[in-house]
């Protein structure tokens, strides 16, 4: 059986979550979407279980990261992801409603693979999500280790 393709969505806004999940479903790019509603939760989901030695959790194939996260900001989460051996090659796409130059720069500096400004128009958002999914999950190659 083929492995489940998983996306980890870090998003604190419930409406945005619903819309993003809907867009992901529509574009049919993945089998499972996991949600983390704040920065700490993202790290928990990625590292907590493996740290306690319990069954190695399956890491997501793609992380969609909002920058405005409670507790730990998107930037802190991103830098932790990039520092850890296990997660440093997981593609991270920043999904933000801002396109502030500083945010874009900082994201890239910390190792984001892509930066996407969420369009207000739902159709365009679905389109963007479909593109992201297709590219990072189908077309793009990541190191296996």
């Amino acid at each position, binding site marked *: 059986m083929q492995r489940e393709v998983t996306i980890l969505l870090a998003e604190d806004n419930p409406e*945005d979550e*619903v819309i993003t999940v809907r867009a992901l479903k529509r574009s049919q790019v993945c089998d499972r979407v996991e949600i983390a509603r704040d920065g700490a939760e993202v790290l928990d989901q990625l590292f907590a279980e493996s740290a306690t030695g319990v069954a190695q959790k399956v890491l997501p194939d793609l992380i969609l990261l909002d920058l405005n996260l409670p507790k730990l900001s998107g930037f802190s989460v991103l830098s932790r992801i990039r520092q850890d051996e296990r997660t440093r090659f997981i593609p991270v796409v920043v999904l933000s409603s801002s396109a502030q130059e500083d945010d874009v720069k900082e994201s890239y500096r910390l190792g984001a693979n892509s930066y996407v400004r969420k369009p*207000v128009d*739902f159709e365009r*958002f679905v389109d963007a999500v479909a593109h992201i999914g297709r590219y990072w999950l189908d077309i793009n190659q990541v190191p296996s280790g």
Partner: protein
Amino acid sequence: MESFAESQAGWWSRLISPRVRHDDPGKQMNARVVGAVSLSLVCIFSLAQVLLEISDENFETSLGHMIGYAIMLGSFFANRYGRYQFAAMALVVMFGLVPIIRVVTEATNSPVSTLGFTTLSLVLGGVLLSARAILAIAIAEIGAVALTPRFNDAVAGDRSGYLDVLLVLVVGTVVSVFGVRHRARVERSRRAAIEESERRYRLLSEDLEERVKERTLELANTNRELESFAESVSHDLRSPLMGVDGYAAILAEDYGNVLDGDAMEKLSSIRGAAKRMSRLIDDLLKLSRMARLPLARTPQDMSGRCGAIAEDLRRSDPNRNVVFDIQPGIVVQADETLIGVVLDNLLRNAWKFSRNREDARISVTKSIEGGMIVFRVSDNGAGFDMAYAEKLFEPFQRLHRQSEFEGHGVGLASVERIVKRHGGWIRGEGKPDEGATFSFSLGSNS
């Protein structure tokens, strides 16, 4: 720098002439005239007096007077550019009166002697002319009187000469002392006043500089705050807007089979409004970023860029027949990105507002008016009522209904900002249904 008179008269002039100069050449000229006149009067009167004394066979007195007058003349020579000429003239008049009075008193056998006049002139001289003049007069009198008894053995009983000397000395000394002290006081207070005003001026300018620096910093901070405010507001406003549009879309998707046509239409209105607001926010953001972009002037081929925009517009709507009349060879010193925004907005506006015209014509020209380069973008489209012209460049202000001509009212506001950042100006002229002309300059170094 030493003046001619100073260099000529050397230390003597420094001793007897006050160093006062007029900055105003007109006043200096006046002083020279007065100086020349008074000098001539001194010569005439002293000559008259000396001649009178000689004719009286009063050679000794005349010799004394001659010495005194020589000193006086020297003093005037050295002093001829000073401001004391008026005082000198008064003195000269007094001295000049002496021989005349003497003639009169001798003729009428009056008891009035020259003594009173000498004293009077001394006092006047002291008050008006400074201690140096007193010194000169005193020496003259001392000379005259001291020589008298030696040559005149008929001095017996005539003590007026000694009295004269005594009076001259006493009055001269007193007046000199007062004069010098008064002058020193005046000079001191004048210097103190100058120093005080200099100090105040320095403090003021330092304070002003400090304040300008402070305000500039404040302004820069406020600007930065405003920009980041605009950024975060746009971010925060967009996020819920996404919810509005997304949920309306999901509602239409999930309940499309239950909702009737009217409900679906209303949902699409909600989505339309959300998108419009999102565009407004984006434009607002662009406007605020425009102010932040650094400005770098380089030569820009304006004709070429207008041509490219025109091509672009033609491609966007090939059915339209618009004549573009772009003056060739216009080159302007402007910021590459920003001038692009200006031309794009103006030409797109011209294109948009002339769409109801069969023979639409859009022109771009350059002219020189009052030594300033002025660019013009004109069309023969819908135009506008000049009564609302001042609203043209205000953000989000529109002169046409959305149903007639779509738009957000940000384009011209951006254009005005850019033009002003280049140190220029922009003006719009129009007439309803006849067209509009936008003239702008990009500052003196365009």
